[in-house]
């Protein structure tokens, strides 16, 4: 994204950065650009947000490989907080960027030794394993982490992603179900569980996936992914060898899902999709349900 820098005042930029911090958006490139163009000169005016913005910029700069900016901001932080664990972690991240993983690990282990309840240092260790491509070791490390910090939702999410990469769907579902206990009304979690169940295949999983999709639609009726998922489950059930009544029910439900999808698309003036959705419709139309 390119901004018209002249029109942005430094307080606008400050608010923007705050918003990104709160929503944990990964907008490293924009942060670095805005820092260089607007904020750097106004550092004195930032008041009590100064340190947290410096930290944000350091991380963004490391993400973009802008060593010059990262070093400059880090110097400020080190001068003021020479013993802070948070600054130590930034130092470790700097080594991570340079791929000196051993040095980074040394710092992180130092932090953990001093403060056993420091979650971010432990998470960085997982990130290092991931960067080295050692997924199985990363899984072991997160599992160990989760025995100590059981309610860390972000960690459960990451574990789920790692299991999916290793195609261990059973365990991935377990992680998602754990998250569902924290957040029973999040449609995204229902959706992901349904997606994984569908991927696993088989009659029973298909039925489970269908119920999760239905629940996701109930929680967020405008959500296209769930409607498409429901359509696919219904297509499978209609095609399967279950009792006639169930197959008929699935067909009606699938048709309903397709109508919903078309409606959503025309309401939002989607240009392309409706004509290609007809392709999905014909998959149903070619099916003739007969009793045996």
């Amino acid at each position, binding site marked *: *994204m*390119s901004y018209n820098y002249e029109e942005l005042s430094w307080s606008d930029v400050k608010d923007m950065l705050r918003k990104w911090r709160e929503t944990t958006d*990964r907008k490293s490139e924009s942060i670095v650009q805005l820092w260089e163009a607007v904020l750097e000169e106004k550092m004195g005016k930032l008041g009590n947000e100064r340190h947290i913005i410096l930290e944000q910029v350091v991380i963004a700069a490391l*993400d973009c490989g802008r060593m010059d900016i990262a070093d400059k901001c880090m110097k400020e932080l080190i001068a003021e907080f020479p013993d802070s664990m948070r600054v130590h972690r930034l130092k470790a991240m700097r080594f991570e960027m340079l791929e000196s993983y051993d040095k980074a690990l040394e710092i992180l282990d130092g932090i953990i030794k001093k403060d056993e309840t420091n979650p971010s240092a432990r998470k960085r260790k997982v990130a290092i394993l*991931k*960067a080295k*491509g050692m997924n199985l070791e990363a899984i072991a490390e997160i599992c160990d982490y989760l025995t100590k910090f059981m309610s860390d939702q972000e960690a459960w999410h990451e574990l789920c*992603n790692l299991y*999916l*990469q290793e*195609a261990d769907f059973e365990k991935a579902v377990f992680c998602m179900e754990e998250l569902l206990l924290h957040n029973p009304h999040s449609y995204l979690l229902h959706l*992901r569980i*349904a*997606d*994984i169940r*569908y*991927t696993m295949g088989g009659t029973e999983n298909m039925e489970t996936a269908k119920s999760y999709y239905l629940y996701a639609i109930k929680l967020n009726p405008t959500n*296209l*992914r769930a409607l*498409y*998922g429901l*359509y*696919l489950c219904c297509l499978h059930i209609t095609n399967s060898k279950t009792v006639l009544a169930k197959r008929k029910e699935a067909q009606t439900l699938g048709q309903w899902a397709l109508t919903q999808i078309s409606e*959503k*698309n025309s309401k*939002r*003036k*989607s*240009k*392309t*999709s409706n*004509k*290609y*959705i*007809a*392709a*999905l419709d014909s*998959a149903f139309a070619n099916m003739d349900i007969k009793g045996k």
Partner: protein
Amino acid sequence: MSEFKISARAYSKIILHAAKYPHCAVNGVLLADKESAGRSKNVHIVDVIPLFHQCLYVTPMAEIALMQIDAMAQENDLAIAGYYAAPENFYHCTIDKTPGIRIADKIAENCSNACLLLVDNKYVCANTDRPALKAWHSVESRWVKAGFTLEQSDSTLDAVSALLQRGAMKDVVDFDNHLDNPENDWTNEFLNRDLKQIMAMY
């Protein structure tokens, strides 16, 4: 060795898609013109459809996307001819680390001499003199190294490098974006038109 011909449009869309989500794995489908698809050599990859960046390891939305892309391809005298992916890890560029390789296998079942392109992250940068891709093709349900040529290689690389510097990756729309908001057009009609104009300048 099988040779693929990759159009400037296809190449730039693959690289822009990978650059739009630098911290994620991304994938997509390759489209060839109908005449050359399935031939044992000189398959002409004319376009690509960017698919996902959020989760490449579950299948439902991929099935939906492939059904719609198939319909779109038939309408435009194209055919699905392969799969591309950019791995999440900077250094991974091998078949066994390819995200969503099962999708590629499935495409290969339905299309002889399917093409698999992997983005080599190390070469995705401005001012590079070689395409940041590696190619494989399917031979009896195995993936074997293949060669490829990029159309107007020099000018395409220059154009892509300029596009990356201008931040043009924000304009690529993948199927995930479309599912988030149906207004987003996964056929990338606008981008295709812009690319055509830009390529003409180089």
